[in-house]
Each structure stands twice: as C-alpha cells, then as structure tokens.
C-alpha cells in the first residue's frame, strides 16, 4: 500500500518539479525554434504516458494487493488487448518521430546562400576563420602548423591569402544571416556549443564537419566545449557576439588576413636592447631577476608570452588591481614602450638572452615534493612534464624561474588579482587551475616540486621550435 502511495506522490512530485523547475531551455537565439517545438511535443506525449502508466500501476497495486483468501485471476494472454496496446504505442511513436524527422530534414538541408565561417578547436581554446573577399577558404594541413601559422594554412595557396583569421576565443557573427558553420580540430575531438543556438556538432581532427544556423538575437553568448577533450575540457570556453550585419562587417574588416599575419615585423632584438635598459634596472642586466625588488627572472621565457604579458600590462588587463602593488608598477613601466613594435622588439631581445639561474629568495620552501608532484600532473598538460613551458599551449616555462614569484602569482590567480579580466583567456584558465590548490600547503608543495625541475628543459623539443619567431 505504501508503495502505491509513494508512486502517486512521486508522479506528483515529478510533475510539480517539472512545472516549477527554474531550469529549462535557455531563451533561443537561433532559427531552430522547431527543435524547441519538437521538445514541447515530446514533453506532452511522454509526460502523459509517464503519468498514466504509473498511476495505473499504483491503482493496480492498491486494488489487487494481497488480502486474506484472495486469489489471482488466471489469464495467460489477451490477444485483443495486446494488439490494441501495440497499435496505440506505434501511433504514439510515429507522432513523435514524424515531426522529428521533418525538422531533421530542415537541419540537413543546408541553404545555398549560407555564409561560411570556420571554427577551429585545439586543446583548450577556440579560434575562427572567415574566407575573405574571394569567399573561398585556403587549404589547410597539419604539417603547416607553426607559431607563425597557427591555422595551418598552406602558404602557397592563393585562396588562403585573404582569409580573415581570428586568433581569439571570441567571434562576432551577423544576426539574421544563415551561417554554415565549418568545424575543424587540430588535435582531439571538441564540440563548439552555444546552448542558445540549440544545434552543435563535434569537431573531428582529419575532417571538416558542418551544420547551419541563423542567429536571430543580438547579444553575447557563452561557448562551451561539449565533447570531452582532456583535462582542460571544462576550461575550453569562448564567446559569440551576435551583432547587426554592419557591425559584423566592420569587425571582420579589423581582423587580419592571413597575408598580413605573414608579413615580417620591423621588431628586432637590437631595437629591443635599447628599450631593455629600463627593464634591467629591476629585472637585472641578464634578466636574472631580483627578489629584493620583487622582480622575477625573465630570461628563458619565450617571446610570445613576454609580448602577451606586456600588452596585458599596458591595456589594464593585468596589474590594474590595487592589491597588486608590483603589478601596478609594472603596468606603469610598460607604458615606457611606445608601441606594439617596441613591445615585440623588447620581447624578442629578452627571449634571446641566455638562460641564467634565477636569484633565489631568502625564504625556504618546505613544501612536500611528492604531493607537489602529484598535483603538478594537472599543470604538466600545458606547462610540460619538465616545466619547460609549451608555447603552443600558451603556457610559460616554470622550471628554473623565480619560485617566489610563481608562488605569488598562484596566490594572485586564486584571489582574483590576476587572470579575471574577460579578455585574458589563458589567465581565466589559470584562475580555475590555481583554484584546485585549495589548502594552505598545496601551493608550496607544487612550487617545491617545480624547484626540482631545474634541469632538462633544454632537452625538450617543445621549447626549441617556434620560440622567438
């Protein structure tokens, strides 16, 4: 008896939960309202069956529960009833399937005039490509990938020269324009998903997958990766800005073409050396750092990392927090560099400095190396097993760098002082990773392990190629 009542209550609770749940489909922002319609239909049909069958079950239990002297009815089969039930079920299934297939036919029918754009996935970031004036994408292949050519375009393909490249996790798309989304992956499976768009498709290395959407609502939408792609899967985020077509066109015009990204810069180590004089006051003539001045070692970092951080300091992405006194100093110092060329030059110069040992701070680190080693596995996927840094993962070298500084930065990531700016995509990932070090000892343990990685970074091919392009 209790079980029958429990079933009735559970049916009631389920229905009420459904009605009052604050969690349901996000407001749609694409043309796929038909999918929502199919879901609504499915809710009604399956909801009715759920309630009806379970209530009948409860009723049967109440009515035919064991009573003294009762005997069950003997009826092995009832062909008529069985045929009826089969027929009704078949009709119900067809009622769900027919509209589903109808909508799927729309999904499969790519509009002829759809505007093409490409989403590129890699562990753990997005980038985007538009075909340029000629409307044709240049050929790509894995063998062309390099630091200077992160999209892997064939440099000799004329169709690729005008391709617009968006080396950022944020993309702008035009509203009310049918879009053919081409998905490509450089490494493992990914899935470019905007919940408000409803549709998505895995990106598979070695092939290009596609689907189409028409964004119907302007605004900014979160992109999430929806196919497990390694330990940084949950950090693989991006943003889609849906804008009026004119705004989109303007934005697109600001994106560099492939040809532009391949032009030689005027940056040079020689020019950088001039600028470095100011830096040397704190970071040392060899870039060896100075703990007394709270200046970390910078020799041994790769050029792209130095350049990115200098840009961040200069644009207020980093060093803006009043709690980050030395970051604020650095933000001030970065303004000494007059333009992007100067930043590129000084970064080139610093990257060319010979590696020197970091000046150790006075404080002793008593972290637990073996615990730190276990935790460091999480760091190693980007920073490398030997802490050598992997430039293509945008992860700087850790081994042999100023460990007091690494410790401070981990604290800063954890406390929201660094990496929280919305354009600092790698900083945001680092915030999430630093947050796994959530007891007082964990940071010290990891740093203690990194301190043991002092050797061997030169063996790694990861640092040798592509650095200082």
């Amino acid at each position, binding site marked *: 008896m209790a079980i029958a009542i*429990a*079933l009735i209550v*559970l049916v009631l609770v389920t229905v009420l*939960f459904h009605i009052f749940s604050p*969690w*349901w489909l996000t407001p749609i922002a694409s043309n796929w309202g038909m*999918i929502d319609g199919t879901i609504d239909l499915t809710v009604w049909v399956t909801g009715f*069956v759920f309630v009806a*069958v*379970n209530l*009948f*079950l409860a009723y*049967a*239990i109440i009515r*035919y529960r*064991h*009573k003294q002297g009762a*005997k*069950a009815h003997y009826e*092995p*089969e009832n062909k008529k009833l*069985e045929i009826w039930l*089969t027929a009704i*079920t078949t009709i119900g*299934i067809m009622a769900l*399937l027919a509209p*589903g*297939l109808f909508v*799927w036919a729309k999904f499969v029918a790519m509009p002829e005039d759809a505007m093409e754009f490409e989403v590129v996935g890699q*562990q753990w970031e997005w980038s985007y490509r538009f075909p340029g004036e000629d409307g044709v994408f240049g050929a790509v292949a*894995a*063998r062309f*990938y390099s630091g200077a050519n992160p999209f892997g375009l064939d440099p000799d393909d004329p169709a690729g020269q005008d391709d617009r490249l968006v080396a950022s996790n944020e993309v702008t798309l035009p509203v009310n324009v049918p879009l053919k989304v081409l998905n490509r992956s*450089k*490494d*493992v499976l990914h899935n470019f*998903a905007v*919940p*408000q768009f409803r*549709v*998505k*498709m*895995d990106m598979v*290395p*070695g*092939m290009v997958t596609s689907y189409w959407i028409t964004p119907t609502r302007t605004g*900014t939408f979160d992109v999430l*990766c*929806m196919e*497990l792609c390694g*330990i940084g899967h*949950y*950090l693989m985020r991006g943003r889609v800005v849906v804008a009026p077509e004119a705004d989109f066109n303007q934005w697109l015009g600001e994106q560099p073409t492939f040809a532009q990204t391949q032009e030689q810069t005027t940056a040079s180590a020689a020019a950088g050396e001039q600028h470095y004089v100011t830096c040397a006051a704190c970071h040392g003539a060899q870039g060896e750092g100075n703990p007394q001045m709270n200046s970390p070692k910078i020799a041994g970092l790769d050029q792209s990392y130095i350049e990115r951080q200098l840009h961040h300091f200069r644009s207020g992405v980093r060093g803006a927090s009043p709690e980050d006194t030395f970051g604020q100093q650095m933000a001030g110092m970065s303004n000494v560099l007059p333009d992007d060329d100067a930043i590129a030059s000084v970064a080139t110069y610093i990257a060319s400095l010979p590696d020197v040992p970091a000046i150790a701070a006075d404080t002793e680190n008593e972290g637990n190396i073996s615990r730190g080693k276990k935790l460091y*596995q999480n760091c190693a996927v980007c920073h490398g097993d030997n802490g050598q840094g992997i430039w*293509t*993962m945008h992860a700087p070298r850790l081994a042999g760098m100023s460990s007091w500084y690494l410790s401070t930065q981990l604290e800063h990531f954890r406390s929201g002082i660094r990496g929280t700016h919305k354009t600092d995509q790698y900083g945001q990932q680092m915030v*999430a990773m630093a*947050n*796994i070090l*959530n007891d007082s000892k964990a940071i010290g343990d990891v740093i203690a392990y990194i301190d043991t990685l002092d050797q061997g970074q030169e063996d790694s091919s990861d640092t040798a190629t592509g650095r200082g392009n």
Partner: protein
Amino acid sequence: MEQVAIADQHDEHHEPTSFITRYIWSQDHKVIAVQYGLTAIAVGLIALVLSGMMRLQLAYPESFTFINPIAYYQFVTMHGMIMVIYLLTALLLGGFGNYLIPLMIGARDMVFPYLNMLSYWFYLVSVLVLVSSFFAPGGPTGAGWTLYPPQAILPGTAGFDWGILLMLISLAIFIVAFTMGGLNYVTTILQARTQGMTLMRMPLTVWGIFVATILGLLAFPALFVSALMMLLDHVVGTSFFMPALLSQGQLTDHEGGSPILFQHLFWFFGHPEVYIVALPAFGIVSDLISTHARKNIFGYRMMVWAILAIGVLSFIVWAHHMYVSGMHPWFGFFFAVTTLIIAVPTAIKVYNWVLTLWRGNIHLTVPMLFAIGFIFTFINGGLTGLWLGNVVVDVPLSDTYFVVGHFHMVMGLSPVLVIFGAIYHWYPKITGRMFNDTLGKLHFWLTFVGAYSIFLPMHYLGMLGIPRRYFANLTTDFIPESAQDMNIGITAAAIFVGLVQILFLINMVWSLRHGKPAGGNPWGATTLEWQTPQTPPAHGNWGPTLPVVHRWAYDYSVPGTAEDFTPQNVPVSPGHDTEDEEART
C-alpha cells in the same frame, strides 16, 4: 529419441572433496556464480565511492585538493567503465546467469564446467589489471568510459600512457572471460534443458539471459578489435583511429586514421551492451513480479518475442549515440527510425508487467518492492530515451546532464533495483536462510526514493545546457546560482544513497547466520530452482533423478487447484490445466 548427457548420469558427479576444489578452483556453477557476484559487488563498491567523490567536487568545487581535474576525470572514467562492464555485465550474466541457468532449466551444471571456472578466473584477472591502473605511473585513464581517441592516447588526458594501456588490456581479458562464459550459457540453454523444458516453457529470466548472452557474443568482438587497434595505435604507432594531428602543438607521426571509426566500433558494441544489461533485468523482473503477484506473467509469448525483437534491433541503432559526432547527418534519419521502433517492444514489456499485477494477488515483499521500483524508474528512463533517440531532440541535449540523468535512470538505477530484488528473491535459495525483512524494506525505501532524487533533477540541469564531464561549471551567462544549489542537493542524495547500501551489506552478512531457515520454496514459486531436493542445492542440483517438466513456468493461481502455484515439474492432471498447450509447442 531420449538422450542422456554425461552430466545427467548421476553416478558420475565428481563431487569436489577439498575446500580448494569446492570453493576456490570450483567448477560448480553455483560457486562460480557466487564468486562472480562477490567480485562484481566488491569492484562495484569502488565505483560507488568514485561517484561519491565526483559528486563532492560538483557540489563543492575548489574544496578538495585531492579531487583535481586529473583525478576527477579518472573517477568519471573508472566509475562508468566499472559500473557498466565489471559490475552490471559480470553480475547479471556471470552471477545470475551462472546460478540460475542450470537450476531453472533442470540441468546438473553448465555443459563446460572447466571453461566456466576459467571464465571466472579470467574475469578476476581483468578486474585486477583494471584496479592496478590506480597504482600505475600517471594513474588510470581519464578518457571517459567511451575511451574516444585521439585524446585517450595523447598527453592532455590523464593516464594517457599506462592507464589506457591497462584499461585496454583489462577489457580484452574481460572479453575473453565473457566469451568462455557466454558460449557456456548459450550451449547449456540449447543442449542441457531437462525433459519437457521446451524453449517456450523457459522462465523469462532464462530467456533474458540467453538473448543477452548472444548479444554479448556478437557485440563484444567489436570492442575487442577496437581495443586491439587502439593498443596498436598507442604502442606501435599505427594510425587506425589517428589522423594527422597535433599533440601539445607538435605534429605527430600519425596520418590517415579515423576517430569516428572507433566510435562506430565502440557503439556497435556499446548499444547492444545496454541490452546485455537490460534483457537479463527484464527477464528477472518478469519472474519476480509473477511470483510475488501470484499471477502468471501476462502475454508470455509476446514477452519472449519482445526480448528477441529488442535483441535484433539493438544491433541497428548504435549510431544514435553519434548524432552529433560528425558522421554524415543523413544517418540521423535511419537511426532515429530504428531507435524509436525499438520503443514498441520495450513498451509492450512495460504494459505486460503492469498487466501482470492487474487482477493479481500482490504480496508486497522486498523483491516485489524492488520490482515495482524498477517499473517506475524504467518508465521514466525509457521515456527520456524517446527524447534522445529522436535525432533533433538529441542535438541540443547531447553531452549535457540530460544524458547523464537518462542513462543512469534507465541502465544504472533500473537494473540495480532489479539486481537488489533478485538478490533478495534468491537469497533464501543460495544460502538457505531468509534475509531480515525490516532491513530489506528500509534498504528499498531509502534507495528507491533517494536515487530517484539524484537523477530526476539532472535532466533539468541538462535542459539548461550544463555539459556533462565538466570538472567545474565556473561562471557562464546562462547557468543560474540555483543550479549549484541543486548540485549540492543531488550530492547530498547521492552520498546518502551510497551510505544506505551498508544496510544491504549488513543484511546479507547478518542473515547468513541469523536468518530464519528458509525451506526449499519460501515464495511458493513454480520454477525449477525452487524444487531442488536440498536447499542450498547440492552439487549436481537434483539428487539421483532430473526433474521432468510438464508445464510452463507461470502456473500461479490456476483455477481449480488448492495451492496458488503449480511447480513446473508437477504432472498435468486432465481437466485441471488451463494452459494453452497448443500455443506453446
């Protein structure tokens, strides 16, 4: 012509004499069944603890240093793989299959007892290899239970080196074990049925196990070859599943392989696997309901045909797991149609369970409570299958918590409820003693209501678009704060339900000594396993003579009989049998 198998000649029983031959290197199907069962439950408890740690992270992100992303993805992967393969498959087929097949069809043992013993020991080795990956350098694989390449064997995924290697080796050994056991089950059912036990008189439990085993024998080879191919990709550097790609920014030597090929192979195994678990549960629950409602199963022939239809159809629905995999979208039409067709025989089974209760004499025993709980959760999980099978509905929900909610409801919770019901049902036969009824009922109520409150809300988080396999949701513009509160609630329920299982373990152990003696047939059941001369059944099961079957397995409450059940081995008395003999032969 009468044919007497060697195993039926009672003077050649080869009764084991020492402790080791009786309980360790045993060739007795009943001992092997218990070995399978205890090993599966032990490894299942590990998987249960892993799920608890996953839930802790999801409710309280950034609180536990030892649950970092690497560890979390390892927990996810090992939880899934252990539960699906090493617990559910092993327990339902190796455990219940072994115990029940010979007893229910009136055989003395499996036809290949030595192979049967080897099957268990290979299974044990596969479990040990799997567990050893926890101690391997880099730990177990964190590739998700689907083990999709390329990421499964590339740095960037936990255990990409040793963990995945041990996982693939363990799976290969498991499949060897399953094949030895499976060939045995099929051959025994086809060849060793006692006199009068026609196929259409077999209990549905045997039918479910029989068809599930055939599915396994046809489906596991697909997993076996994909495991071998991935091993080669990983160890030798072949490129079955590996196209030209970068790894941590470096060009690898791979070229020309197809990641989607692996998915096809995996799900060609993986979807039948769902029914490898579901069909034995369907069969068992049919017998539980019939016995405890004192009523024949409704529509027996339809039930058998439904099992067969589901078995056949389960081989042509696999790509509904791949609607958004990047395979050609035209496949969506075909697989949506086949997938929704399979709902028809499945729905018929549900109707027939409910109609068996209708006009029954329902005893709300512990096994019956679990059976009813199963019907409820299976209706829920089956209906959301109609959502995900319908390709357009799947596209937004794929890879979200809706999927997690769906498959836990339909192939996690549902079969587990049947397994509990089955353990309570057959415990008196296996041990000779009754379990503690109060503890059993408490265990049911807390598990049933608790587990439903774990998985129901997950569907709604999925509707919102929260992805599965996320270590942390972090901040987004569409996930409200309330979703995190719900996550805390789900975790509380999950940990509660996990702890409740201690009641079950206590009951099982306590009742071994202190349970009331059960007698041979405490439930008044008709099937042969309840008619053995000794309880627990002795070696050879039947004493000097094999039972002879005269009727189907469901003669409950036959009009004109004094008792409300007529065992299968009771001869038909003219005029007092309403069984439609013509229809059954």
